[in-house]
């Protein structure tokens, strides 16, 4: 009975019938109380987003896996302290963090949320060393600003590490019959255990994320695996139908995944990207380790061999909530296999092996099982080993490029990031994650047109698939897209995007940010503020929402509130340079120029290429009477971004204030040619000519300025200037005012 219940629970979990799974599991637990079953129940609860239930049942359990699940539940419930103690019961046994790489990753997240930056960096690094494919850890390191070069992380060392684990896996394969494996002796289990710790947690991490997302490939894989006719064929379409589940995904992860959406789109829920990636770089062995972290699908495949070796080692079967998704399929499969004769068992094993090991090779030939048969020799040959190595290096190369690009982007070396991303193959480049990063790079460069086109491209890409994928996409970059559109002042498009988003998912903070940006564009700051506050309600840790709130308060001139919002944003993420910038602007408005200068300095430390920040820093310096530094800063700004006309304007203004009219005039004359439609340039020129007593030129420029539609208050000012011009000398009629 226990087996039956176990199997059905696992099956239910893999098919998302969570409530049924919970029910059955409770019967199971009541009848056969054991820690393992307890873990299974916890997994059921976690799959059903009932972290509190999982928390209560796991409280006090000691097994590593239980501790990991318990820590995860605590994390979900925001009980960071308990989560930490669960993962690290005593200070000395750092190595025994349950869950391996995933455990370290979770611990890193906990520390990050608690603000303990150094500890979290350490944990992420450990996670990466244990499992080089733990991309999320690398992403977190990037955003903390502590990432090393991608080449060191995804290097030969990690390659060896991966090899070891794959080899171990293979060894266990070559055992032959399932039954043999099931009843395998220490060797297999030890090996398996060895890479189990590394693999599974790594996967569980990702799986957890996947679980959050909802898409679950294993069931399909499982089903396919069972049909020998389609064994190695992943239904590469599986992501799509599953995507609809995504809509209930909790926003926090969505945002996180916006930044580090998942290993090169593998993790992403976009069927297209999965498809592309999978068809792209996969080789037999690649499947193995990529499976470990990449997608549930791959993980599933990998899992299959794992579970095979372990058979009913339920402890490992219940590795993680989402692992259960495919593990159950495995166990049920194993169960089925057991029923068969050993002879039949072998072919199944073999096909399983093949699918796991060689599916990628036949990815392009979806339906062909031919290759399987070729490779059905369970004796791992040296050819396998070689392709394993090459596979690993391919994956690592890919990760290296992406890691580099990501790191550059988060260091705001946008040009380098763009260059790096260009190195990717066409197929990889066209995945949503990469395109989104590219778009973000353009955005940070203030190249809004390009950013717009990239994001629109992604949007269109998505339109080809289910609406669900549109929503995912929009979640991921809607806030950026909306900001881009706002900058380009395209109200209609922004409004349309906002409508689309609301209709697709009301529970995503990005949606409300987009809507808020709409209102802000229309200068309805109070409503915009409400929208941003809704976004914050949905996800407290959405740094950008806090910063946007701050901007709105600043626009409403409520500077204390603005400051508060910015500081809150900074408490979540110190590297969010927009918040530093916002603080600087607030202080500028409040005329506290020294403070303003400090804030701009901090922002510049994080993003040293931003000419806008340099401009404002220069203004603050000028107002604090440090004029030489101000002028130097303006020079830097001019060099940093040649397309930005403002530093020249500000420089001319400073020079004029300092009385150096000739230089100012020169600068402005150049600027006038670059930006002929800007009324303030002419107005300033007019003022300067007036000081230089070249009245006719002054009048000319004032007139031009007026023609160029200045704001009413400026128009009044300019008219006043013109008036005063005339008074001393000429008596000519200046009625064209």
């Amino acid at each position, binding site marked *: 009975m226990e087996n039956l219940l176990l199997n059905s629970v696992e099956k239910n979990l893999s098919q998302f019938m969570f409530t049924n799974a919970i029910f059955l599991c409770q019967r199971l637990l009541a009848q056969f109380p054991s820690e393992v079953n307890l873990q299974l129940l916890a997994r059921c609860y976690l799959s059903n987003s009932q972290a509190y239930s999982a928390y209560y049942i796991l409280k006090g359990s000691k097994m590593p896996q239980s501790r990991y699940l318990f820590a995860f539940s605590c994390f979900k419930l925001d009980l960071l302290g308990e989560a930490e103690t669960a993962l690290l019961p005593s200070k000395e046994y750092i190595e025994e963090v349950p869950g391996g790489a995933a455990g370290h990753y979770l611990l890193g997240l906990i520390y990050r949320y608690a603000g303990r930056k150094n500890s979290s960096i350490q944990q992420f690094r450990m996670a990466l060393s244990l499992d080089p494919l733990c991309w999320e850890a690398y992403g977190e390191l990037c955003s903390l600003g502590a990432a090393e070069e991608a080449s060191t992380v995804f290097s030969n060392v990690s390659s060896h590490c991966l090899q070891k684990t794959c080899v171990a896996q293979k060894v266990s394969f070559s055992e032959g019959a399932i039954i043999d494996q099931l009843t395998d002796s220490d060797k297999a289990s030890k090996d398996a255990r060895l890479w189990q710790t590394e693999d599974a947690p790594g996967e569980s991490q990702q799986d957890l994320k996947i679980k959050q997302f909802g898409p679950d490939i294993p069931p399909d894989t499982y089903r396919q695996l069972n049909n020998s006719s389609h064994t190695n064929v992943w239904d590469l379409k599986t992501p799509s139908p599953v995507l609809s589940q995504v809509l209930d995904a909790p926003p926090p992860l969505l945002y996180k995944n916006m930044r580090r959406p998942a290993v090169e789109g593998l993790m992403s829920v976009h069927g297209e990207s999965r498809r592309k990636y999978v068809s792209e770089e996969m080789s037999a062995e690649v499947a193995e380790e990529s499976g470990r972290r990449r997608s549930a699908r791959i993980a599933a495949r990998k899992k299959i061999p794992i579970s095979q070796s372990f058979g009913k080692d339920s402890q490992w079967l219940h590795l993680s909530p989402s692992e259960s998704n495919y593990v159950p399929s495995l166990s049920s499969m194993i169960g089925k296999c057991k029923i068969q004769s050993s002879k039949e068992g072998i072919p199944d094993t073999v096909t399983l092996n093949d699918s796991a090991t060689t599916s990628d090779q036949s990815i392009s030939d979806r339906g062909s099982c031919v290759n399987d048969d070729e490779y059905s020799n369970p004796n791992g040959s040296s050819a396998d080993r070689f392709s394993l190595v090459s596979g690993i290096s391919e994956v690592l190369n890919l990760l290296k490029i992406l890691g580099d690009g990501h790191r550059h982007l988060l260091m705001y070396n946008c040009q380098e990031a763009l260059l790096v991303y260009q190195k990717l193959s066409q197929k990889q480049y066209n995945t949503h994650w990469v395109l989104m990063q590219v778009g973000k790079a353009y955005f940070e460069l*203030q190249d*809004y047109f390009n950013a717009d086109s990239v994001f629109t491209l992604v949007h269109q890409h998505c339109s080809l698939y289910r609406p669900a994928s549109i929503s995912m996409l929009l979640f991921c970059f809607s806030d950026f897209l909306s*900001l881009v559109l*706002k*900058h*380009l*002042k395209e109200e209609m498009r922004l409004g349309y995007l906002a409508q689309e988003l609301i209709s697709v998912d009301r529970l995503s903070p990005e949606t409300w940010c987009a809507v808020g*940006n709409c209102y802000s564009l229309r*200068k309805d700051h109070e409503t915009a503020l409400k929208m941003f506050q809704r976004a914050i309600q949905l996800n407290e840790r959405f740094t950008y929402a806090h*910063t*946007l709130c701050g*901007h709105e308060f600043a*626009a409403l001139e409520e500077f204390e509130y603005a400051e508060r919002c910015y500081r809150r944003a900074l408490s979540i993420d110190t590297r969010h340079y*927009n918040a530093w*910038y916002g603080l600087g*602007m607030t202080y*500028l*408005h409040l*005329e506290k120029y020294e403070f303003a200068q400090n804030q701009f300095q901090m922002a510049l430390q994080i993003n040293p290429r*931003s*000419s*806008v*920040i340099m*401009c404002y820093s220069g*203004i603050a310096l000028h*107002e604090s009477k440090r004029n030489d530094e101000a002028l130097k800063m303006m020079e830097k700004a001019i060099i940093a971004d040649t397309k*930005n*006309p*403002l530093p020249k*304007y*500000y420089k001319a*203004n400073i020079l004029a204030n300092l009385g150096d009219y000739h230089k100012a005039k020169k600068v402005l004359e150049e600027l006038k040619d670059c*930006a002929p*439609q*800007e*009324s*303030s340039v002419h*107005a*300033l020129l007019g*003022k300067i000519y007036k000081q230089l007593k070249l009245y006719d030129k002054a009048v000319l420029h004032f007139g031009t*300025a007026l023609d*160029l*539609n*200045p*704001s*009413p*208050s*400026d*128009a*009044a*000012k300019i*008219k*006043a200037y013109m*008036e005063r011009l005339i008074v001393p000398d000429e008596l000519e009629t200046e009625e064209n*005012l």
Partner: protein
Amino acid sequence: MATESSESEEEGKIRGGNDKLNIDDDLREMGKNAAWSVSSCKPGNGVATLRDDNLETYWQSDGLQPHLINIQFQKKVRLQLVFVYVDFKLDESYTPSRISIRAGDGFHNLKEIKSVELVKPTGWVCLSLSGTDPRETFVNTFMLQIAILSNHLNGRDTHIRQIKVYGPRPNPIPRQPFQFTSAEFLTYSTLR
């Protein structure tokens, strides 16, 4: 805000019927930064009703004419428009008929800058503060005083339902002489 429409009058050039929503983008409501006070009021119909965004509640004076509403700012501000919501149909003899707007540094040196006469207004009445000189679109002042000199049908006390004061938006970039107008300048002028 809500609806509106009132009618025009003769000399004060008060066209009524200003649709509130037609406030230009470059104007913003300035009343939040000001201290509001009135010369007299009936209990329950005090000065708060002038600023509560509720057109049902009104301020009712309780003394001798002229009735005064004082708006004092902490620093000199530029003001362009004053909107007053009055309704003859509801208030009849309580509806103001002659309104004078004065500006100055304080109670001691207020000077009249605008005087209008309303005839049966129903809705938002727009009082523009710019002088006859078209160049003077704003009035730069510490204090504004709205004086109700007389009411319709010679009523003694007056009802006013809402008052809004508008001035130009400041330059979003502090300490700059002029605002930017072209797209390129504006894109580079802020970060979000």
